[in-house]
């Protein structure tokens, strides 16, 4: 009797497993076709030789990957480290990280503000946050350019009140890229933060004050640990596109201050070195992957070790 009951239970379980696979099949197919497939093509290209006028030749070559890290002198074939690439890698990670931190600093109070409004007012504030999305990113970036260029609004204002005598050079600097990216990606930080803060039980904040916590104590020991999922989600949503940003560094950084995205574009365009471009793309994916692993692991660790 118990045996047959067990059989029925097992069959049920098998059916459940099968149903679950069937139900997720459309999503899996889509991910394979639109995500994994193209990535495999890029990986494949990175191991081919460059064609003379762009494109690739169907023969194996590790030159693409070699060129990610090293350069070969065109005259005497001596090999040296590709300093320029490292510089761009470093600048990309640095700027993406700084952008994430800035978005967190500006986004957290914004999200907190919205989450503490009366429920029927919140959707209005959220709506206002999403307004920039209605405009093309390129146009928004040009708007930033208009604000910070030498004859732009900021400089002409500062000069008209006599605070400075000659314009401050803001365009084509890392500052300009950071400013632009923070502006463009801020909503991506605010929205997940808001989602977390909105679920926060504000009675816990009262309990914190009741138990002698200062404002900072409540923020640091209660609010931040509880909205950590939102902070992690927002940081990923900002860091990943910031690391591979193309438009903002192109417009606000000019030709000099390249980021990874621009470097990759260069290889597929003027550089006519598709394998190198493909290898750089894969490198970018790997950097993002490790950055995320490191971040998520660290974030969850500090949550569990709030002892003592």
């Amino acid at each position, binding site marked *: 009797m118990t045996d047959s009951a067990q059989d029925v239970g097992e069959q049920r379980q098998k059916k459940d497993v099968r149903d679950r696979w069937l139900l997720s099949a459309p999503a899996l197919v889509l991910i394979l076709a639109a995500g994994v497939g193209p990535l495999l093509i890029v990986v494949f290209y990175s191991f081919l030789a460059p064609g003379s006028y762009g494109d690739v030749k169907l023969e194996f070559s590790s030159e693409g990957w070699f060129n990610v890290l090293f350069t070969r002198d065109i005259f005497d074939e001596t090999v040296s480290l590709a300093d320029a690439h490292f510089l761009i890698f470093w600048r990309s990670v640095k700027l993406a990280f700084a952008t994430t931190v800035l978005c967190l600093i500006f986004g957290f109070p914004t999200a907190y503000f919205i989450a503490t409004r009366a429920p029927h007012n919140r959707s209005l504030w959220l709506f206002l946050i999403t307004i920039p999305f209605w405009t093309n990113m390129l146009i928004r970036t040009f708007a930033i350019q208009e604000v910070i260029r030498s004859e732009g609004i900021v400089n002409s204002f500062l000069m008209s009140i006599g605070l400075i005598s000659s314009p401050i050079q803001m365009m084509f600097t890392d500052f300009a890229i950071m400013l632009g990216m923070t502006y463009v990606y801020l909503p991506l930080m605010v929205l997940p933060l808001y989602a977390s803060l909105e679920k926060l039980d504000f*009675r816990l904040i009262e309990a914190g*004050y009741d*138990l002698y916590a200062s404002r900072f104590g409540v923020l640091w020991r209660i609010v931040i640990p509880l909205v950590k999922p939102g902070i992690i989600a927002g940081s990923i949503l900002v860091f990943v596109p910031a690391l591979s940003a193309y438009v903002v560094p192109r417009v606000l950084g000019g030709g000099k201050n390249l980021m990874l995205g621009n470097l990759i574009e260069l290889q597929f365009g003027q550089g006519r070195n598709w394998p190198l471009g493909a290898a750089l793309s894969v490198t970018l994916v790997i950097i993002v992957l490790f950055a995320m692993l490191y971040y998520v692991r660290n974030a969850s660790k500090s949550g569990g070790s709030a002892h003592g």
Partner: protein
Amino acid sequence: MTETRTTGAHGGAIGMHGIKKWFGNFQAVNDVSLEIRSNEFFTLLGPSGCGKTTLLRMIAGFELPTEGQVLLDGTDISRLLPNQRPVNTVFQNYALFPHLTVAENIGFGLKMLGKPKSEIDSVVGDMLKLVHLDGRGNNPVTQLSGGQQQRVALARALAPRPKVLLLDEPLSALDLKLRKSMQVELKRLQTETGITFVFVTHDQEEALTMSDRIAVMSTGTVRQIGSPWDIYDRPSERFVADFIGETNFLEADVVSVSGDKARVRLSSGAEISATYPEGVTPQGKVTIVIRPEHARLGPPGSGVLEGAIHTIVYLGTDNHFHVTIDDGKTFTVRQQNANSAPCGFSVGERISVAINDDVAQILRD
């Protein structure tokens, strides 16, 4: 008793003077003045929306009075922030920090006060024993049952040794059996720690069981303050008598007053003696209250009210007799089933209701 937590003059007397609180156009508290003595178990009792929780939150510092003063041991604390008041709260939903363990929750207040780790650890250990959660210190609070969470919330609020502990309907989420045992538990904790407890509830039984004194509130005002006995047996007005327990209201005429008692004539013409609230001079038509258990049934002519039994409700421990008295009103009599036998009365039977001596109370108009 696991440790010596008994205290002598620990302080913790609360004074509220002329408290008014407006939320926009809504007046939640209307001119409340009351004194809560040091080391007492004081209950604010009333239906929802009567302003009891608002009063509690003004002692905690979560709300500021629009007018009036809150004093703690004679010092004005009305304008202090919650984290500046030596007062802790047990919240209705417990409000435990879900990301911290049991021990971290209990130690939170002491940690925020900057106490050394060794002291925190020893107090947390004592607290875990006090609320019978020894060995559960490292559990996440989210894995505890409702009753256990309740005890963690208590321990967390008691750990910093507040002068006053505020409890906002802390038992309302528990099932009946657990609620009963927690009532005993709370009373024990209050006696053992010697901390002033201010307890908010809408449950009259909870209030009667645990309190030293009760303030009955309705529509933002305090209706009566007194011991559970005062509140139950000597209600001063209709709201209090009606809110606490079952009650019979009767119309009567005052015949004479002598000392603290008055003679009143019932609709049947019979006269009984009744007590009356302080500051009232009984005269003319009055309403008196008589509790169902303070009356007895007898053969016609033996009591003060004549009537017929309308319904009999059997409750195991006792019977409720709903009697239609001859002036048309209904009067309830409650008689204990002292013997294991039928009650001896039947529906429709003509009977007489006798009322015990000194149980009737005249209400303020």
